């Protein structure tokens, strides 16, 4: 079947004027995230009451805890995708690992920032270098910042993917240390232990927190998909070479013009493209 680039099965990506990678699925997910964030804002600032212990500062928890969960999710998914890459040599797995870890680093940084802002009025300090939870989380984020830096080092695609995968998997060993540091070294941290499951949170506070976690996880899925597609596009730019890609893009545009004036989209464009 011969088809114009503007009428393909991939929705927006099949338009010759398309400069993004949106489709129905990701747009729906994006709208759900937006609605979810509005709901979280209403719950966090309109409906939920101040906490007995933390007072209004509990409202920081509605972004701090989901950010921490998202960073763990990003790193775990990245490590799993890296393992899959080493097993199957799948380029998609490598790109997924990169996307997921980059999003994980983003939310890891946000976890540290929001935690420090919460810590100042609560503990009387933004940061404590002797606190095992704070420092181990910082180390975890820095390990994955190193992963991102490693991806920027030269080399062919397979070499880069292989060494990055090894670092991603090795760094994941830090995740349980961060998670359980408050239990293993409870005398060396200001950080509270897990509070989601201890039954101390009031109903609406717990509901707001759980809603925020769900919305943030949806956002992670959306953002990682976007970042994955960006990685795919940038890989294509590298693979095809800029000059060849531009020539093909012009051929596509010309195909569209030919179709508009009633000329066969095949003849000239295909021949010129092959000659190029």
């Amino acid at each position, binding site marked *: 079947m011969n088809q114009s680039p503007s009428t*393909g099965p991939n929705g927006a990506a*099949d338009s010759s004027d398309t400069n993004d*990678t949106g489709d129905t699925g990701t747009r729906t997910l994006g709208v759900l995230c937006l609605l979810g964030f509005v709901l979280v804002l209403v719950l966090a600032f309109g409906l939920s009451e101040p906490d007995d212990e933390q007072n209004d500062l509990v409202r920081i928890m509605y972004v701090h805890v989901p950010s921490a969960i998202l960073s763990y999710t990003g790193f775990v998914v990245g490590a799993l995708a890296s393992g899959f890459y080493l097993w199957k040599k799948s380029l998609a797995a490598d790109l997924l690992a990169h996307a997921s870890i980059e999003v994980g680093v*983003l939310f890891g940084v946000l976890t540290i920032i929001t935690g420090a802002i919460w810590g100042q009025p609560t503990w009387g300090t933004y940061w404590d270098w002797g606190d095992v939870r704070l420092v181990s989380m910082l180390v975890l984020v820095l390990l994955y910042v190193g992963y991102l830096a490693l991806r920027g080092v030269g080399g062919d695609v397979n070499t880069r993917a292989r060494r990055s995968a090894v670092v991603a998997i090795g760094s994941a060993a830090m995740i349980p240390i961060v998670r359980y540091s408050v239990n293993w070294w409870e005398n060396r941290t200001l950080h509270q232990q897990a509070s989601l499951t201890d039954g101390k949170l009031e109903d609406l506070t717990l509901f707001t927190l759980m809603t925020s976690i769900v919305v943030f996880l949806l956002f992670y899925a959306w*953002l990682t998909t976007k970042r994955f597609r960006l990685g795919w596009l940038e890989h294509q730019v590298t693979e095809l070479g800029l000059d060849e*890609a531009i020539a093909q893009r012009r051929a596509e545009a010309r195909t569209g013009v030919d179709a508009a004036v009633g000329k066969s989209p095949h003849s000239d464009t295909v021949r010129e493209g*092959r000659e190029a």
Partner: protein
Amino acid sequence: MTNVSSIALAWGAVIAVIGVYLWNVMVRTRTAAKQVPVANQRWMSTPKSGGVDSVEGSDT
């Protein structure tokens, strides 16, 4: 720092950092998409190496 300013700072930091990152991803996506043939822009339904033939036969 008051509780209110701490809350505003924390939420503001989250919105600002996510916003800047998202903007960066969108701009880079648009820039890259302009350089990649349409048939190669989606990894699941298209061939890995492009060309005019693959543009015209992208549904096969």
